[in-house]
């Protein structure tokens, strides 16, 4: 005679439907988590790239520009300061003015790109004061307004993404709980028979907890892997079609990404298990 079958029947269509629901919700939650994490990382990258960058616009002749560069280079906290050539300036303006070159009569100010060390205090103010002391007509721009706006925007976007992820997770947990409850109601006959044959509440509950824990973990893992595949595919497509991909969130499979993907199945399994326990205990509490 073959070994005894499990006390719970094999999964049926109700549990297959629950698997699909959990899988879909975990896909959405982990995909949103990956996107939010990537958006945060990209925002940090953008902000890092402009922090410490100073641009000096000099009006006048080339000698004035060279002098301004010397002053900048000599200022405390400046790593490097270099004069941007006309060809570089034309390349920067190409997206707006075309790449066929600028007419000679269009005046292009001399630009100096300087990099300051991160902890240099008010270095832009120091350069600005020294340039004025030398009588040079120049504007020092440390991009603080732009980078501040960027940081605010990315922080807001990041918070919105986190909020969306939080909402998705809460919805996923609620739907998993509801679907588990519905799937379990159909098993009430088994709960009753086990109860009336002398099974303790904990014994009956543990049967369902194990079943739904595994179901949640499997569905969550499937959803998380699908999210990873989708994110990778989307970024692959973006990289194929865009030049400035550095502006887009990057998929790097960092520790945080791994954490998001790893936590999703556990969370789904835990939600299903707790929901199973609550439902079975609720059913049992209605029995003597």
């Amino acid at each position, binding site marked *: 005679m073959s070994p005894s*079958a499990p006390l*719970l029947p*094999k999964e049926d269509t109700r549990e297959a439907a629950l698997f699909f629901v959990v899988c879909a919700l975990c896909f959405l939650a982990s995909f949103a988590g990956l996107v939010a994490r990537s958006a945060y990382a990209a925002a940090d990258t953008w902000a890092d790239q402009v922090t410490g960058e100073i641009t000096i616009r000099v009006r006048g002749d080339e000698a004035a520009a060279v002098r301004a560069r010397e002053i900048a280079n000599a200022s405390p906290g400046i790593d490097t300061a270099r004069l941007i050539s006309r060809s570089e300036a034309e390349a920067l303006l190409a997206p707006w003015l075309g790449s066929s070159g600028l007419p000679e009569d269009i005046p292009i100010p001399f630009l100096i790109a300087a990099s300051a060390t991160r902890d240099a205090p008010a270095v832009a103010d120091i350069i600005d004061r020294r340039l004025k002391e030398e009588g040079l007509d120049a504007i020092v721009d440390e991009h603080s307004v732009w980078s501040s706006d960027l940081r605010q925007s990315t922080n807001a976007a990041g918070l919105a993404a986190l909020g969306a992820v939080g909402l998705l997770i809460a919805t996923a947990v609620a739907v998993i709980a509801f679907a588990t409850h519905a799937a379990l109601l159909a098993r009430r006959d088994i709960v*009753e*028979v086990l109860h*009336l044959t002398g*099974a303790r509440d904990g*014994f009956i509950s543990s049967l369902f907890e194990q079943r739904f824990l595994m179901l949640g973990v499997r569905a969550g893992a499937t959803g998380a892997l699908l999210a990873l595949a989708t994110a990778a595919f989307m970024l692959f497509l973006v990289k194929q079609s865009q030049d400035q991909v550095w502006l887009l969130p990057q998929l790097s499979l960092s520790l945080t990404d791994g954490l998001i993907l790893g936590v999703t199945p556990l969370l789904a399994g835990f939600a299903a298990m707790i929901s199973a326990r609550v439902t079975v205990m609720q059913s049992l509490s209605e029995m*003597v």
Partner: protein
Amino acid sequence: MKERNISPDTPTLRFDRVSVSYGPGLDVLADASFELRPGSMTFLTGPSGAGKSTLLKLAYLALRPSQGRVSLFGIDTARQSRAERALTRRKLGVVFQEFRLLEHLTAFENAALPLRVAGDKEKRYRNDVRELLEWVGLGDRMNARPATLSGGEKQRVAIARAVVMKPDLIIADEPTGNVDTEMADRLMRLFRELNRRVNTTVLIATHDMELIRRTPADVLRIANGLLSRQGQESGR
């Protein structure tokens, strides 16, 4: 013989002014008092809807009384914790009218269910369960699932499940309703044998007056929710 630590004077089942009501004027059982002595065999009879199933549900702890007290093995079940009631249920063998077999389990697995629930290992009980199923005429149907069994076969699996633990109290709701006279007598002999050899108390609800006449046992009659005890019917 199974060890028992219940005093021979302690009633196996005792109803103390038990009533069940589903609302004003909806009394299913009114002020019922009786007791079953250890080792007694009792039929519960009465017309359909008289309250037999309700009384049995109270006895096998599937229903709480609206009033009164149900005691099993000398203990007021209302005072027991859920875990204690689970242990009390293991001393009961119940044959449900609608069988309540688990559809995904074989006849063997259904019959062995109380043993699994109690934590016994299959290798310890395998032969006992086989013998029991052979005894009830299902030796060649052990691996069949309930969906492929006839009503009578299901009933015999349900009976095997009820007696497999050699319970202190067997409660059976129409246990011979779906079997022929020969099998009914055979099943009654099984109950009788458990009753005599293991001192199991037996309570059987039945409509079958002929069965009651053929079997020596006490008789409880219930009508309109009111219970009355009759003397021992004369048996064969």
